[in-house]
């Protein structure tokens, strides 16, 4: 039970911040809700011109894409920002001299990322249901597997960003905000991979997100589960996650050698 208690200790530290600060809570939901408003009205506009059947598919593909992409984005930010909060409060030293193991730190970051993602995406999903009559769960149970893959993608990208911060210091913090957003064109959130130039398709398909969104469109348009895309997404996530974990471990050990843990963020 001791590892769980240490993981809870770190989660408690971050959850307490939310309990006391409504702007922090608002900040989590603000952007996903804003995105949902913009894309909701845009898809409604197109749907009205496409007729009931095609319009419904358009709404489902676009709004499903918005919500799932926000899951990836919120998971990524939830993971990385929770770590950066420790840098900003100059608390990393205390964390790393406690008996908290590095894997427990990562487990706490994953748990906080899931909580932050839910707090951010649930209001947007509710808005989609109320305003645009789109229920994400109507895609089918496979939505859970899509969501799991996008969260994992958020985690390994965040682990990569944290590794860069450990290696390069606070100067690499800005990458956290832009890294996953920069991958959006390759993730094929709103269009199929086939519209990309041939050479770019191979790069896009090395990202789990491209397979997830291809799978989402297949589920929405044809009502089929593309297990091949899901298998690729899980496989790629496993590979990227392993690579990012090894990179984090290497940079963490390097930071212990070069003293970066003592003055990171200064």
């Amino acid at each position, binding site marked *: 039970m*001791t590892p769980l208690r*240490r993981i809870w200790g770190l989660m408690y*530290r971050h959850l307490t911040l939310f309990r006391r*600060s409504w702007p922090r809570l608002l900040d989590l939901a603000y952007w996903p809700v804003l995105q949902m408003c913009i894309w909701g009205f845009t898809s409604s506009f197109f749907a009205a011109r496409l007729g009931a059947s095609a319009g419904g598919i358009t709404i489902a593909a676009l709004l499903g894409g918005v919500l799932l992409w926000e899951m990836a984005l919120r998971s990524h930010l939830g993971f990385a920002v929770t770590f950066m909060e420790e840098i900003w*409060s*100059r*608390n990393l030293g205390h964390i790393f*001299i*406690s008996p908290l193991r590095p894997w427990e730190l990562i487990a706490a970051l994953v748990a906080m990322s899931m909580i932050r993602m839910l707090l951010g995406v649930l209001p947007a999903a509710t808005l989609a249901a109320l305003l645009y009559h789109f229920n994400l769960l109507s895609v089918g149970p496979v939505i859970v597997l899509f969501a799991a893959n996008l969260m994992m993608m958020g985690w390994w990208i965040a682990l990569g960003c944290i590794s860069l911060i450990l290696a390069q210091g606070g100067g690499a913090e800005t990458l956290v905000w832009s890294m996953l957003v920069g991958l959006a064109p390759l993730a094929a959130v709103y269009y199929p991979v086939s519209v990309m130039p041939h050479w770019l398709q191979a790069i896009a398909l090395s990202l789990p997100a491209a397979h997830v969104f291809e799978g989402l469109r297949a589920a929405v348009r044809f009502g089929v589960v593309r297990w091949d895309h899901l298998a690729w997404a899980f496989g790629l996530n496993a590979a990227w996650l392993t690579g990012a974990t090894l990179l984090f471990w290497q940079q963490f050990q390097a930071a212990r050698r*070069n003293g970066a843990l003592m003055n990171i963020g200064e």
Partner: protein
Amino acid sequence: MNVIEVSALTKRYRETLAVDAIAFTVREGETVGLLGGNGAGKTTTIAMLLGLLVPTSGRIGVLGHDMARDRFAPLAQMNFSSPYVALPARLTVAENLRVYGHLYNVAGIDRRIAELADELDLHGFLDRAAGKLSAGQKTRVALAKSLINRPRLLLLDEPTASLDPDTGDLVRSWLERYRAQSGCTLLLASHNMAEVERLCDQVLMMKAGRIVDRGTPSDLLARYNRDDLEDVFLDIARDRQVVTA
């Protein structure tokens, strides 16, 4: 029993030799002072003892464990306080202590916080954000955090820096009392010679990464034929010859 066993400990950053093959032991219940000027290697030594920094070479044993192979077992039984390492400013004092109570797996956290609040007189600001405390209050809270797990080994980096003389004296008195009651081993880095003279059984004088002298405060005073450690410190810092009586 030796709580700390350090041998041939070296830390090199590229061309800079921060700690140069130092060796020392600290017995259980002893208070040892690390004295030296800025850049002498005190903080680097403490960081290596805490496992925050990996030595270039040498060995560190803490509470019978080799820090290179098994640092988490001793880390659960030791703690650290420094005015230079902050606690999360937006959390209240009680919340901060609760976080570290969980991290150190402390049984009966609220009871322990109440004990520490009694001992360090924290009751007046337990529910205040840590960032809104005075320097003296922050020092007491940092001490409370470092005692949350009833450590067998407590490392202190300049525990009374930036405190007024009255608060500094209160902290020193409290450390003396705590050591007498708990039998805790203390390793203390300080620039305050009076503090070292008052608290420490042994003093390690560091300069340019090396331990250049060691002994009890009275041994050092006698050896350098001085009345206070500040003069001993200056003799060593300025490479003055030892004046024999």
